[in-house]
């Protein structure tokens, strides 16, 4: 698998994620009790045997940088390992690309100096756990110019913001709809593409030379419609969940409480790697109660936890009640406090006897470090 490199483009539109992404890229959003979103894309690359991974960043990438560090947790810290590709900041450029094509254009030198024949290009806001080896084999066998990964059971939060393909019986893409409210195709784009590194570089440079910004519309759709590139689909039938709104974030975390769903996403042969914190195991103390919840190491539970996800180092004091909530790292629920349908960001504190109850459809978000 030496002949494949990876490219993760971060900094997607995060307007529907509100406060959760005000200080961080979606890629760095804590999720699933101990991970960040990018752990899923990075681990998938690693399980495919990819050693050279570029992470294209836009604004707000310092927590992402802090999380991935040298890439050590993913065995990507070597000389041929992971590279962070920050935006080139100038007075005109505040670090936001106007489209995927722009992001690629700014990083053609990375594409040029990489050695691998193929590239797997992915977004950073879809949760999945894929070994791309099979898709790569199909790409080669089909003699495809571009292979697009799609799913028939992808979960997204925002309606009308998706791309659908129509594929023929050989999996060749014969149609593509972008942002249709009632799409004809049922093959939802995972926004993961496989192509030759050299072709991607050429398409990027040609596109940019023609003043284009949108990879999907200006490159993919155009070439599919005109038949100028051989574009094939590859169906991924595992879990795929796009984190693009507070609702989709909340629902994805809650879905993990189902054991089948969880075991599908975390098969033992493809662990998801993440930054290690060296916490001790979770401690259950005294009259603690816990029901249908995911609890990370370092938690300290003396109260009641129901249908919730606790990240590392969360403290639930005596008499506190946490229901249907997501509680991020090192947050504290003090004695007698009660929360329901809340998302507590890192290090937030619900003070003694505080109550924060929201309806299921509108979970409340408490920002990082806030004390209530």
């Amino acid at each position, binding site marked *: 698998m030496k002949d494949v490199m990876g490219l993760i483009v971060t900094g997607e539109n995060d307007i529907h994620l509100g406060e959760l992404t005000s200080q961080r890229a979606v890629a760095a959003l804590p999720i699933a009790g101990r991970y960040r979103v990018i752990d899923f894309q990075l681990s998938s690359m690693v399980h495919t045997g990819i050693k050279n991974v570029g992470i294209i960043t836009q604004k707000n990438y310092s927590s992402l940088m802090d999380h991935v560090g040298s890439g050590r947790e993913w065995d990507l810290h070597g000389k041929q390992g992971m590279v962070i590709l920050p935006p080139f900041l100038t007075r005109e450029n505040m670090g936001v690309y106007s489209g995927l094509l722009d992001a690629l254009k700014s990083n053609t030198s990375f594409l040029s100096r990489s050695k691998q024949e193929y590239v797997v290009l992915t977004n950073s806001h879809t949760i999945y756990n894929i070994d791309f080896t099979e898709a790569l084999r199909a790409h080669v066998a089909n003699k495809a110019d571009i292979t697009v990964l799609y799913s028939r059971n992808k979960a997204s939060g925002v309606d009308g913001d998706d791309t659908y393909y129509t594929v023929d019986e050989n999996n060749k893409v014969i149609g593509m709809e972008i942002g249709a409210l009632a799409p004809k195709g049922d093959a939802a784009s995972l926004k993961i593409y496989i192509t030759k590194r050299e072709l991607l570089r050429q398409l990027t440079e040609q596109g940019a030379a023609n003043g284009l910004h949108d990879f999907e519309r200006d490159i993919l759709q155009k070439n599919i419609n005109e038949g100028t590139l051989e574009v094939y689909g590859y169906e991924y039938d595992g879990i795929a969940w796009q984190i693009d709104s507070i609702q989709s974030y909340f629902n994805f975390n809650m879905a993990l409480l189902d054991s089948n769903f969880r075991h599908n996403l975390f098969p033992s042969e493809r662990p998801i790697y993440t930054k290690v914190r060296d916490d001790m195991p979770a401690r259950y103390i005294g009259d603690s109660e816990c*029901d249908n919840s995911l609890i990370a190491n370092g938690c300290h539970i003396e109260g009641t936890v129901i249908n919730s996800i606790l990240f590392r180092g969360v403290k639930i004091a005596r008499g506190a009640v946490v229901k249907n909530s997501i509680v991020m790292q090192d947050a504290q629920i003090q004695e007698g406090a009660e929360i329901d349908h809340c998302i507590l960001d890192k290090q937030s504190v619900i003070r003694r006897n505080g109550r924060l109850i929201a309806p299921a459809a509108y979970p409340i978000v408490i920002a990082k470090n806030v004390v209530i």
Partner: protein
Amino acid sequence: MRKKKCVAMLLAGGQGSRLGILTKKVAKPAVPFGGKFRIIDFPLSNCTNSSIDVVGVLTQYRPLELNSYIGSGSPWDLDLSNGGVFVLPPYQTGKTGEWYKGTANAIYQNIPFIEQWDPDYVLVLSGDHIYKMDYNAMLRAHIDKGADLTIAVREVPWEDASRFGILNTDENDRIIEFEEKPAKPKSNKASMGVYIFTWSKMRKYLELDEADPKSDNDFGKNIIPEMLNANEKLYTYTFEGYWKDVGTIESLWESNMDLLTLPMPIDLSDKRWRIYARNPGMPPHHIDKGAKVYNSLITEGCEVKGIVRHSVLFAGVTVDVGAEVTDAVVMPGAIIERGAVVRRAIVAENAVIKAGAIVGEETGNIAVVGPGATIASGETVAAGVQIDADAQ
């Protein structure tokens, strides 16, 4: 290699026979402890936290798992270009080679390793104790006293003193006598098996010891008495925190249970003295609907559907519906099936307790189910019994 002030040599030991089937296939320091650690994490993390960054691990017994666990040393920040952790087996020079004959001989055979670092001091550790200790503070005491050898001691209850190696000292903590398990102890200062030697002296006594064909090549039996005879400067250094020898099944179980008392006698959540460990990379554990967990430590990757009381569950353990786990240590990957009962027991890595089986009793000695062993449905393992997968 650049000069180091102090290097550590960890005696990972031979077969830890008192740990029975738990060490049949792994060296003792690789035995799991405390839900997410292995015993060796404690001395290695103590070294890192004490800024001692060269650690030689001396072993000749089944080093495979230990070797894999230590790997590049990165979990302990010991993957260094100028330093790090090295597994040191016996080797051949010229046409001959010999196995380690004793603790002192193991160090003697590795004099060239030590000399690479040109150290002033050598710290000798063993791999079967649970404790958090600042070796650097001990080193400062060693230097301040101008000692040739400093031995860490802790004060044990007088009635237990006759079970230990006891050091009798003068009022300045200078050692005047060493007695192994004295019938009538004159002191309650028990050796912890943690030594700091001034390297030039250590080297001299290792060479003298090696030249003596009658020697057992052991620190306690030979090196320390010889140094005392020669009137070298030997001092004790008193350690006051939690310290537990986990060299027996009972003490290993007890030490795990100690983590369930409040406050923890050894704080493993202290951010200023972390105990590092290799991470298995599993998702958070899941407590299912209807499951009950009381006063326990539960690690990532566990799936709890039954009842867990006063127990330590390591990574990836499954406790199925209706199963009951009480006063137990359940090591990584073990499965306790429906309705099975585990009490006062150690269930080792990847063991399977089939539906309805019963392991251990409410009182009596600890029952042990060995690594990979299966207890069939309806079977019973009595208190104190050890079940070996290979004997099944």
